[in-house]
């Protein structure tokens, strides 16, 4: 009974319900949408966003923000694509990309914790710097001619439905989820986001937790960059630009609070799948996919506002019940003549 209650209270469940309802409605209008093949195409297409959203959710749960992941994705993609084109083994390319992610994350983390620059400012600045670095690195040119074998990786799939990328991403995400919820260190992220001073008081290393969150976010962005290279096959200097906003939107759709302390990576994943499927949904409803942004914006606002109003109502109700419980009911005081 208790577990059931908890499940119903879970915020990611409402996101999942939303996803299912959306799929069913689209399926009712256009049954082709609900074909297994198409559904998996939708899922497989969401890998980049899922990776970004899972990574950034670490930062958001600690109560900070990271708008540099789009540029990090671009730089990691450019670096790894250049290496691959040059004939380096893919292990080297992956290591180099991850190193980029760690580096950017570390700089962000130090800026936010040691230099105490507000996170939106810090990561916004770093976003510009990293984006510029892509131009410097690529000399403003596209990185093309990525080896065919590497591109083929993105198509490789299990039973012709689930790509290895999607499968690995989900496994990865579940592992991360377990670490976050079941281990001592993992719970530190939520604690820091929930009440920073309180976390400090009971001995949680606030600063290093935040730095780690930024590094994780950077690493996930870098991995997303590698997937991007494999899927797209070339890297432009603007690769990944604007993705940071979509990743943040995905987290919010998945029930993660930007105030910190609330949310799970499962929620982030569901949110990312919603985000990634919107343009596909539009096509199946025979709308132009140009309305992608409009729908995303409306969804984001409606969901968040509804959630906030419900939460506020619950809190207000609890407050009022508590206050009413304090008053003496039945006979009033002796003074009521």
């Amino acid at each position, binding site marked *: 009974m208790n577990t059931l209650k908890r499940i119903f209270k879970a915020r990611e469940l409402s996101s999942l319900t939303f996803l299912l309802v959306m799929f069913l409605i689209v399926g009712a209008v256009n049954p082709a949408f609900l074909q297994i093949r198409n559904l998996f195409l939708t899922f497989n297409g969401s890998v980049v966003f899922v990776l970004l959203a899972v990574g950034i959710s670490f930062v958001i749960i600690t109560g900070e923000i990271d708008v540099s992941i789009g540029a990090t994705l671009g730089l990691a993609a450019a670096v790894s694509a250049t290496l691959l084109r040059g004939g380096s083994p893919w292990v080297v390319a992956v290591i180099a990309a991850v190193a980029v992610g760690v580096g950017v994350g570390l700089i962000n983390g130090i800026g936010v914790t040691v230099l105490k620059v*507000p996170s*939106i400012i810090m990561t916004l600045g770093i*976003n*510009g710097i990293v984006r*510029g670095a892509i131009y410097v690195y690529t000399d403003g040119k596209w990185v093309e001619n990525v080896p065919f074998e590497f591109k083929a990786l993105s198509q490789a799939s299990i039973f012709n439905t689930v790509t290895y990328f999607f499968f690995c991403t989900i496994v990865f995400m579940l592992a991360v989820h377990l670490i976050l919820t079941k281990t001592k260190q993992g719970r530190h992220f939520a604690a820091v986001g929930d009440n920073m001073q309180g976390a400090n008081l009971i001995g949680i290393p606030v600063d290093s937790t935040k730095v780690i969150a930024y590094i994780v976010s950077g690493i996930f962005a870098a991995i997303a960059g590698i997937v991007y290279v494999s899927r797209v096959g070339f890297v432009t*200097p603007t690769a990944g630009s604007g993705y940071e906003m979509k990743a943040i939107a995905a987290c*919010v759709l998945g029930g993660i609070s930007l105030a910190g302390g609330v949310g799970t990576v499962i929620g982030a994943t569901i949110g990312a799948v919603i985000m990634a499927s919107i343009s596909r949904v539009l096509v199946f409803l025979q709308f132009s996919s140009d309305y992608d942004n409009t729908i995303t914006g409306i969804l984001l606002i409606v969901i*968040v*506002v509804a959630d906030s109003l419900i939460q506020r109502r619950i809190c207000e109700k609890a407050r009022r019940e508590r206050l009413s419980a304090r008053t003496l009911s039945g006979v009033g005081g002796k003074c009521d003549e």
Partner: protein
Amino acid sequence: MNKRLLKEKLFQWENFLILILITEILIFGLLNPKFLQSRVLLGSINDFISICIISLFVTFVFITGGMDIQAGSIVGLTSISLGVLWQDAGLNIWTAAIIAVLIGAVCGAISGFLVAFTGVQAMVVTLGGQFLYSGIALAVVKLSSSSAFEGICGFPNSFISLATSKTLGIPNQVIIFVVLIILSYILLHKTKYGRYIFLCGINRNAAIYSGIKTKLIIMSTYILSGMSASIAGIVLTSYLGSARADLGKELTLPIITAVVLGGTSNLGGKGGVLGTALAAVVIGIMRFGLVMAGLPTQYLDIPIGLLLVVTVAARTVSGNTKLMKTIGKFIRKA
């Protein structure tokens, strides 16, 4: 006492910005003497007028403790709306411009209402707004007979001259900027409304207990920022001679940089438009000067990002005595 006051005055952030500005102009002047001609210097504002206009009023939002990352998308929406209203609806261009400003106000009002009345974080609401308004802009394109790629062209000369000609030898854009600085300065620093904005940002509860209608005040700042974005959209359309839906897309970073660099706190309650105006010019001149010195435009985000991070870091670090001591020790050791 007097000495301390003098010292405080001297070390005001605005003065520091003026110093940076002068240094910038001198360096770029040395690199390329043409840069120092008043025609070039004043004309450079064409490249960053939108940042200047919008950041003035985004400052208001920041002071209430809010955040606005949607202004850039309103620029594109108003630009394309202006074009469609003129070309496809056949309105007079100036009527169309007024309606465009109203559209900006409505966009701001929607987001502002949600921020003020539902308690959702401003960052989330304006993120949603960014998606929504840029999406609507694309939808508006479909109403026009022109393609999104080309934009809408062929505006009357009277409209084009709004941003391109000069009055009394001064470029119109400079005049628009100065007028808006004066307006916003008076509004924020000399009126009751402006004071209420500060009080809301410092402590909203205490403002409520003082009988201030904080929700309306907060909402109004988003309306102002939306209107400023649409003014920027109109000026930009006039300058470029074409109305496009994707204008203003890259403005979020420079706008926030200008506001924060100008000394306004992103936590609310502190700041001013003079600092923002100076910072916007510092950024604009830097972009312009670097391009004149031969740096490719795509690289410009690097110095601006650095400027943002370094100044804010310096400001927070110098306010942190403990960290300063450690750094001092470190330097002495080395």
